[in-house]
C-alpha cells in the first residue's frame, strides 16, 4: 500500500544516506525522507540499519520538540519501507538569508540558533549536523531545525563541543564575512539557555577540539 502517494514527486536532496522528496499527501505538501538500500550490505543488515534509523530520527525530532525546539511535525513513519513523511516547513534556509538580512536580524537569528542548540544539549540531544542549510527561517521569524539523521543522545561534553565546532565551521565556510560575529552571538544565545558555567566548559572543549586539527608548521 502506498498510502495515497501522488505522482508529483520532486527530488529535493540526494544525500549519502537518505534522499528527500517533495510530495503531496492528503492535499498537503510534505517531505518524504527515504533511506535507500545499500548494495554493499547483506539484505538482513541493510534492512535492520534502515529501519532502526527510520525509527530513531522521528523519536529524536519528537524529543527536540518536547524540549521546545521547533522541528517538523512527523505525519507517518514506515519502518518497514524506511520512509518518514513529515511536514514541509515553509520558509527559507538560514543559509540563504543570513548574509542578506540587516545586521540586527543577523544577530537575532544567530542568538536564537544558539539558544535552540543550548536547549537541545540541555536535553541530551546532539544534532550531529549543524549547518545553516539544516535550519529553516519561517515567515513568522522562527527557526525550525530539520534533518536529525546524524543525531544522537548524549550528556557528555565532547559531542556537544563537536556539535558547536561543526556549527562554527559551517559559519566560517558558508558565511565567512560575518562568521565571527555570528558565532559569538550563537554562543551568547547558548549561554542564555545553559548558563555561563556550562558555556565556559564547552568553549574550552571547542578550543581543545580545534587544536587537534592544528599543528606546528615545520618539524
Amino acid at each position, binding site marked *: 500500500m502506498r498510502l495515497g502517494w501522488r505522482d508529483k514527486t520532486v527530488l529535493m536532496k540526494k544525500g*549519502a544516506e537518505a534522499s528527500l522528496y517533495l510530495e503531496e499527501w492528503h492535499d498537503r505538501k510534505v517531505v518524504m525522507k527515504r533511506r535507500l538500500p545499500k548494495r554493499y550490505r547483506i539484505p538482513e*543488515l541493510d534492512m*535492520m540499519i534502515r529501519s532502526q534509523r527510520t525509527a530513531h530520527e522521528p523519536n529524536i525530532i519528537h524529543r527536540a520538540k518536547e524540549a521546545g525546539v521547533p522541528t517538523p511535525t512527523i505525519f507517518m513513519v514506515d519502518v518497514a519501507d524506511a520512509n518518514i513523511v513529515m511536514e514541509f516547513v515553509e520558509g527559507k534556509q538560514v543559509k540563504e538569508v543570513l548574509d542578506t538580512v540587516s545586521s540586527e536580524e543577523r544577530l537575532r537569528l544567530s542568538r536564537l540558533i544558539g539558544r535552540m542548540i543550548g536547549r537541545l544539549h540541555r536535553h541530551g540531544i546532539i544534532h550531529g549536523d549543524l549547518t545553516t542549510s539544516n535550519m529553516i527561517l519561517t515567515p513568522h521569524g522562527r527557526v525550525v531545525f530539520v534533518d536529525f539523521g546524524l543525531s*544522537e543522545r548524549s550528556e557528555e561534553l565532547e559531542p556537544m563541543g*563537536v556539535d558547536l565546532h561543526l556549527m562554527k565551521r559551517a559559519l566560517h565556510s558558508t558565511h565567512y564575512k560575518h562568521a565571527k560575529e555570528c558565532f559569538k552571538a550563537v554562543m551568547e544565545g547558548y549561554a542564555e539557555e545553559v548558563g555561563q558555567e556550562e558555556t565556559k566548559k564547552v568553549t574550552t572543549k571547542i578550543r581543545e577540539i580545534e587544536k587537534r586539527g592544528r*599543528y606546528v608548521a615545520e*618539524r
Partner: protein
Amino acid sequence: MPAKHSEDSYCLGIESTADDFGAAVVSFDGRVLSNINDTYMPKEGGIHPREAARHHAEVAEKVLAEAFETAAVKPRHISLVAFSQGPGLGPCLRTGATAARALASYLDVPLVGVNHCVGHIEIGKLATGARDPVTLYVSGGNTIVSAFEAGRYRVFGETLDIAIGNCLDVFARAVGLQQRRGAPFGAVVEELAREGKRFVSLPYTVKGMDLSFSGLLTAAVHAFQSGQYSLEDLCFSLQEVAFSMLTEVTERALAHTEKPEVLLTGGVAANRRLQSMLAVIAEEHDARFCVVPLRLAADNGAMIAWTGILAYRSGVSTPIEKSYVNVKWRLEDVYAPWVEG
C-alpha cells in the same frame, strides 16, 4: 637542501611498531628491492610489548642482513635510514629506533623518523598508482578514514575504542581459534565466515563519522558463549557488521571530498569481503578502487623506507637528538609537503 639523489640511491627502512620487525631496501625511484619481516608469535594472548621488543632485538641483525642480501645492496651504498617513529608500542618502537640511529651514525647518512600511518598510505599509493585517494587504513592497531587536504592527511573518521584488526583478533582468540604463520587471525576468521549462512544480529555503531567496535566484540563473544550459534555464522555476522560500518564511513568521506580514488590499506586490507564492499561504493561514486597488494598490506619496512624517501626529498629529516619515539603520534600531526594537493 638535501643532496641530489638518483635511482642509484637507496633507503633502508626499519619497522617495529607492534609485533612485526621489518627491514627493507627501497630505491629512490620507488623500487622495493627487499622487504624482510619477522613476526613475534606470542604463545598465548595478545602482544606483550616487552616480549615483542625482545623478539625484535633478537631478530634485528638477521632481518637486516637478509634485507641487504636480498636487495644485493651493500650497507655502504645506503644513503638514507628511515624508521617507524610512532604511533605504536613504546618498547617495540624504541628497539627499531635504536637500530636506525646506530646504522645512520655508523654509515654517516641522514635519518628520517616516519609516521607509521602515513607509511601505510604512501606505500598503498606507490603500489597502486593512486594519487589523491580517500584512504581506509585498517589494521590491528588503527582504523582511520582519511584524505589529503591542505598539507596534511586529515582524519575524517576513526575508531573511538579498539581497531578493527584488534576486534577480529580478540574475537578469534576468545572463541579458541589458532593463528598460523602466514594465516593471521583475520585470515582464519575470513575462512570461517565464508561458510557462514545465517546472519546473527550484532550491534552496529557509527557515531557521525566515527566508529566503535568494542560493543560489537563483546556481543559477538557473548553470542558464541551462549552456544546458540555456529562459529561460522558468527564470523560471517561479525565481518558483515564491522565491514559495513567501515564502508558507510568511507562512503560518507568519499561523498564529502569527491576524491577520484578509494584506497584500502593496512593488514585488514587483505580481506576479500571488505575489498568487495569498498569496490561497490567506489563504483557508485565513479572513483577508482585501489587495494594495497598483500605483500605490502601488513606492517613492513618498505612502507617506512618509501615514506622516508618522500619526506627526505622534500627537505624533512630527523636529527638524532630529536629521534625519540612518539607512541601517540597522530596522522594529522604530520606535515606532508611531498604530497601535491
